[in-house]
Each structure stands twice: as C-alpha cells, then as structure tokens.
C-alpha cells in the first residue's frame, strides 16, 4: 500500500538525495520531497502533507525562529532526525528515530518501517474529529441548537446528538462555551464570530 509521504529537510544535497534514493524505492512510499532549509517549512508541510518528516537536527538547534520546534514536532506526523554531526543526546530524544550517516541501507529502511508501523497504530487509536464532527462543531460554536444544526446540515436530530456525544468523548469538553473555545483554538472557526 503506497500511502506514505516523506519530507526530507537537509542542507546537503548529497545526503538528501542519497537518503531519497535509499527510501524512495520502497513500495510503501507514495512520494518523497527534499528541501534544503527551513524558511518555508511551514508552507511546505501544509502543501505536501507528509506523514513523516526527516530533518537535520542542526536546524532545530540553531534556529532563530522561536516556533520552529512547534512546527517540527507536530502531532500530525512523526519526526525523524538525520544526524550528520554531533548533537547532544538530550536534543535527539525529541525525535521519534535517528538516522545516522553510518547506517547502511537495511538499517535505514528498518528504522523507517518502525516509524511507519507506529503511524499506522496511531491512526487506529485516532481521536481526531471526523470531517462531519468538525462541521457540527463549527455550528455549535456559532451557537446553533441541535435542531437548527440538523436542519442546516440535513441530518436527523438523533444523528446530530450522536456526533455531539462523540465530539465530547474525543475532546473531553462538555460545555458549549468550552467547545467554542476548542473550535476557535484549533482554527475550525474564525475568532470573531
């Protein structure tokens, strides 16, 4: 099943292309993309939608951008390190896995497959809201009642209530105003509604 998208963030073209060559042949990989610096990393992640990001930890170590860590270590994908020079062990612990320059082909593939399996496991226990649940959350945040939501989205009131129960189960938030804050914090609705 070809469903993994991998983003490599590495300044050295030799290393980046070498890594791409090694992992790109795997049947489980849909696409591999290489970028050489982090200036447009956030946009790239949004457009490429990787499941795994392999980044040189030097970027994280020397970044002047305060929020780079938040971008690199996201819950939306796994982050692996490609280590080309000495990095403090403490920093390496932030990564799901570390690929070293001395690793051979088999070892690199092994590490990558390990992470892919974790990604599959994660999907199985996923508590992210479904698309429908997000639609309903948006209407809740706008202050609509169950009945109004059911009319607007052409659903039965019972279905709306089931979705609401699931939203509360997944987010652990019960009150309407709490759900509104949640929806706004996650950018499902605009802040000034």
């Amino acid at each position: 099943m070809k469903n993994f998208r991998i983003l490599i963030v590495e300044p050295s073209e030799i290393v980046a292309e070498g890594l791409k060559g090694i992992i790109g042949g795997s049947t489980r990989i849909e696409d591999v993309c290489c970028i050489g610096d982090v200036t447009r990393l956030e946009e790239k992640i949004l457009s490429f939608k990787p499941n795994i990001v392999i980044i040189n930890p030097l970027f994280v170590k020397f970044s002047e951008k305060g929020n780079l860590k938040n971008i690199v270590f996201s819950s939306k994908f796994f982050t692996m390190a490609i280590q080309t020079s000495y990095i403090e062990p403490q920093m390496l612990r932030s990564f799901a896995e570390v690929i070293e320059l001395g690793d051979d082909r088999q070892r690199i593939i092994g590490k990558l497959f390990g992470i892919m399996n974790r990604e599959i496991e994660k999907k199985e226990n996923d508590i992210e809201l479904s698309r429908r649940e997000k639609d309903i959350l948006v209407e809740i945040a706008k202050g609509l009642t169950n009945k109004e939501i059911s009319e607007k989205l052409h659903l039965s009131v019972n279905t709306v209530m089931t979705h609401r129960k699931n939203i509360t189960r997944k987010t652990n938030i019960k009150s309407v105003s709490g759900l509104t804050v949640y929806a706004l914090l996650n950018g499902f609705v605009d802040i000034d509604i």
Partner: protein
Amino acid sequence: MENIFTENMKMAELIFANPKLLLVFSHFNMGLGFGERSVGEVCRQNGIAPLFFLLICKIYTDNEYVPSNEDMKSVNINDLFSYLKKSHLYYIEEKIPHIERHLDIIIKSCDKKYGDLIGRFFGEYKVEMLKHFDYEEETVFPYIKSLCEKKNSGAYSISDFKRKHNNIDEKLGDLMNILVKYLPSGGFEMERIEISFDIIQLSQDLSSHSLVEDRLLIPFVELMEDGSIN
C-alpha cells in the same frame, strides 16, 4: 473511613488523615494551630456542634457516604446554612479571584485572540457560578426558613431544587482540558501548572460541596416537609 473520625481523636490526626479537610476549616471559619486538642474540644471552642462537623468531614472524605437517620438528627439547619454560605463566600471571594489573577497572567502571555477567548470563557463560568449560588441563597434557603417557621405557602418544594441542582464543575473540567491540552504553549508554564492545581482543588471542593447539598440538605428538608423533623 468514616468510622475513624470521632469526637475524641486529635484534630490534627483528622487533618493528616485527609488534608482536603483543611478547606472544611475555612468553610467553618475555624483557625488552625489547635495543638493536641481533640475534635470535640476544637469544635466547642468555635461554637460548632462536633457531630455536625464530623458529618461534613465524612461526606467530604467518602464520596459514597450516605448520612443515616441518626446523622440527620445532629443537623441544625442554621448551622448548615451558615456552613453553605461560608463555602459560597470562599468560592466567590477567595478562590475565583485567585484563579482569575493567575489566569490573567496566562491570558496576557499568550496570543491576544486566544487570551480574550479564555478570559471570556472564565467570565462566563463566573457568572454561571454566581447565578447558581444566588438561586440557592435567594430562593432555596428562604424557602427552608419559611418551612422552619411553618409559614410555607406551598408554592415551592425542595423537589424543585433537587431537579434543578447540578454540579457546577463541568466548565472547570473544560477549562482544565483547554489549559492542559489545547492552548498552545507560550511561556509562563509554571503559572499554567499552578493554576491547573488550583482548578483541580476548586473542582474537588465544589463536588464535595454539591454532595453536602444533595446528601444532607435535600434529604433533611424532605424530612422537614414530611413533618418527620421539626
């Protein structure tokens, strides 16, 4: 657990058995520093009936505790009112402003649009809490007083309160989730951890407070309505 709480035990032992009971002291307006004195002695010095004090401690300690008929006899309704009102005051004048002050620091430290949201959310919670206490003090307590004075008009009954009464810690749980899970981290982490502890403590105290009303106040008034207690 309830059996170990007796009038003759040292007050200090009771506190060390369940430190959450420290808040009961504040709700009874009792000071600490009681040395080796017993529960009975400290209570009498503060003008509180020891059995009533112990009953509250039992409800606070054991969520499953259901007061017996014997327990009901130890209740003086005025003491119970004054206990509940003191608790309300503690929430309104101490705990909420305390959380508000600390929350303010977090609000100012994060992105303004998020900060405003959290501020508004907490503001709404405060209004809800005040309304809840107001209803009890302006409607429920006067009704019970009229019942004591046998001047009840019959328009209201404690079953109306029983139906309506809810635990007001739901939004606190939501706030906790938002602070711990969803608000992006942005400095003042210690403040956020501290305030999470404050919220947990308030939420636990509120749920014990609710239990006192559900397990003690309501059944007691039901007995009064029946005429079983005067």
